[in-house]
């Protein structure tokens, strides 16, 4: 039998989940977890070499292969981080071996669900996959079973389910809109068929469907004012999950939204989805930027920073056009790498200090220089300072917006500046000054942290021509 990369991307995590649920012993399972995510990443890369034909359920094209490679890569590096993080949690008794087993199985289920959502050609399957991803993360957010963790998980569960329910209603409406043009049955839910015939759909029905999808999947993207679950879920769950949530799951929800945006773009009579996304994006950006100032919990602060950046990305895709789409894709990639790197650093910091309170951390550069400077570099990157990758993408978003509508660009720049101020204010407390809180050395593996930062730095200084051409072709696809 030939090696089927598409099947591998889905089946490896699924089998790994079953296996990890059964195997006892932390050392073996943590390594197996790393191994499985590595194998998934390798299969994802091999999708570039041999691309399968789109079927009624699965599809691989330029757009989603970008997402899949990013997802599996960050999934792999996070599993390396998770191995040392979870080991520490076992030592200090915050997790029991049974829960670690459960955690690893859920981690692989989440990877499966995200990959399935990305390769789904059927909008029903895509919805199921995103629901599965939501449920697995709910379980993981509540894994510490403290007051706060349970409340965060409950809130995430309720708000996530409402979002998912609205998205399903939107999906049903898309089917209703497609039925007269495509005919009854499976075809009317297959995305490749829909995009070919979308010009014949009833525009009014398509509009209402998109509003539901935007609200539904927008909740999962964490767009304000639908973001209420996000800071709690990030703050209370295990840190590897915060990294995966911020770096990957938000992207997957946004990807679903982009697919439907492409459908609407084909139909000339339907409403332009751009302005809606631009508005939600800007609201999220400005709101989250201000919220950065009052944060006392370090993970909560970076969760708000994720809302801010998802706002920028949604804004860029809402503006549309080759340059803004390019900038949006680049920003999304850079944000995933940087934010997960920050959470890797934050996870170790919080373990050393035994708390997530910013006031109880201080002088990290003195006590733990490697970790401290890693965190500083990450925050500098996420704030969008040159010469790192996020500077590049933010610059592109801002400059392309200035060319088209200066008023929007002003709001954008205002939000960005407010955000930078908030981040640096807190960074000063954490990284410099008198050391505060317990002092301990960390036996963490710094490889995931610094490999992400190196990639972000490299993208800021020099991007290979092939990568630029690739992003350009995807940007064109997005219209």
């Amino acid at each position, binding site marked *: 039998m030939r090696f089927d990369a598409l099947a591998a991307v889905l089946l490896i995590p699924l089998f790994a989940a079953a296996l990890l649920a059964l195997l006892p012993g932390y050392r073996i399972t943590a390594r197996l977890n790393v191994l499985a995510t590595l194998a998934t990443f390798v299969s994802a890369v091999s999708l570039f070499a041999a691309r399968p034909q789109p079927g009624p359920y699965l599809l691989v094209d330029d757009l989603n292969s970008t997402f899949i490679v990013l997802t599996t890569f960050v999934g792999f590096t996070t599993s390396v981080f998770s191995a040392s993080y979870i080991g520490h949690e076992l030592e200090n008794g915050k997790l029991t071996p049974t829960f670690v087993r459960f955690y690893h199985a859920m981690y692989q289920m989440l990877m499966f669900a995200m990959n399935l959502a990305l390769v789904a050609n059927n909008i029903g399957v895509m919805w199921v996959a995103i629901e599965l991803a939501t449920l697995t993360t709910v379980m993981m957010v509540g894994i510490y079973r403290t*007051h706060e963790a349970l409340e965060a998980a*409950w809130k995430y569960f*309720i708000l996530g*389910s409402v979002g998912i329910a609205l998205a399903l*209603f939107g999906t049903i*409406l898309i*089917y209703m809109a497609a039925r007269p043009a495509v005919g009854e*049955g499976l075809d009317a839910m297959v995305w490749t068929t829909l995009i070919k015939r979308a010009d014949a759909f009833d525009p009014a029905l398509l509009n209402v469907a998109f509003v539901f999808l935007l609200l539904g999947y927008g909740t999962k993207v964490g767009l304000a004012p639908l973001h209420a679950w996000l800071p709690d879920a990030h703050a209370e769950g295990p840190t590897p999950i915060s990294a995966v949530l911020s770096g990957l799951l938000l992207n997957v929800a946004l990807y679903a939204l982009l697919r439907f945006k492409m459908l609407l773009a084909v139909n000339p009579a339907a409403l332009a989805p751009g302005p809606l996304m631009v508005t939600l994006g800007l609201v999220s950006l400005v709101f989250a930027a201000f919220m950065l100032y009052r944060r006392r919990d370090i993970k909560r602060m970076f969760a708000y920073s994720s809302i801010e950046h998802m706002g920028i990305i949604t804004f860029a895709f809402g503006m549309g056009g080759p340059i803004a789409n390019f900038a949006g894709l680049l920003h999304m990639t850079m944000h995933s790498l940087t934010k997960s790197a920050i959470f890797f650093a934050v996870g170790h910091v919080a373990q050393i200090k035994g708390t997530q*309170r910013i006031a109880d951390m201080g002088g990290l550069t003195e006590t733990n220089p490697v970790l401290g400077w890693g965190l500083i570099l990450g925050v500098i990157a996420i704030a969008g300072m040159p010469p790192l990758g996020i500077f590049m993408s933010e610059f592109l978003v801002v400059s392309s917006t200035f060319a088209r509508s200066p008023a929007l660009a002003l709001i954008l720049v205002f939000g960005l500046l407010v955000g930078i101020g908030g981040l640096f204010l807190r960074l000063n407390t954490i990284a410099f000054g008198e050391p505060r809180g317990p002092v301990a050395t960390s036996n963490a593996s710094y490889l995931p942290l610094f490999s992400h930062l190196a990639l972000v730095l490299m993208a800021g200084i020099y991007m290979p021509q092939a990568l630029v051409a690739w992003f350009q072709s995807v940007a064109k696809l997005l219209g």
Partner: protein
Amino acid sequence: MRGLDFDIAHLLAGTLVLISFLQLYQDRLYALLNIFALHALVLALSVAWQAFIQDAPHLYVTAVLALVFKAIVIPVVLHRIIVKLGIHREIEQVVGVGPVMLAGIGLVALSMVVMLRVTQDADPLAREDLAFALAVVLLGLLMMVTRRNAVSQVVGFMSLENGLVLAATGAKGMPLVVEISIAFSILIAFIVIGIFLFRIRERFDTVDLQALDRFRGERR
């Protein structure tokens, strides 16, 4: 088209909306669960009727699932849970009955206006089904926001899902994938909810979410 088929489908979908209204003002958990069971029963009838008139036998599966899981198993289990938790005599009310009912009427009007306007070309049966379904979904949402008790929020969520099933079955010829997925997700959702309720109980001795709210947001 406008024969008996249509009238019965219309009657059942309309009844579902009415039962959603009944749920809104139940302040005792037992009564709420009983009304929810009724809601699921009517849904099962409605889905079965759709299966009959659309000549789509796979929809009977959905109908049976609705009947067994939602109308029987889940209410029974939730009954047990609330007895175990000792909250079956509790009375809860966050917002007054009047404002909630008015808001509910507003939401129904909204869904009629929106759905009937955008689906002018669709066949009347699917059209009205969709409008009723949206009304049920929105009433479920309203219930979730006006309640503080975890059990009643869950009931709100499940009646919202009932609305989605109504919409999915009303959309003629929608592939089986979706029906399975809906049934499946309800199942999973229920497991998750069950676990949550027990976990919450372990920690708090109450499922009143107001108790949880003390721990919200920034600590200290």
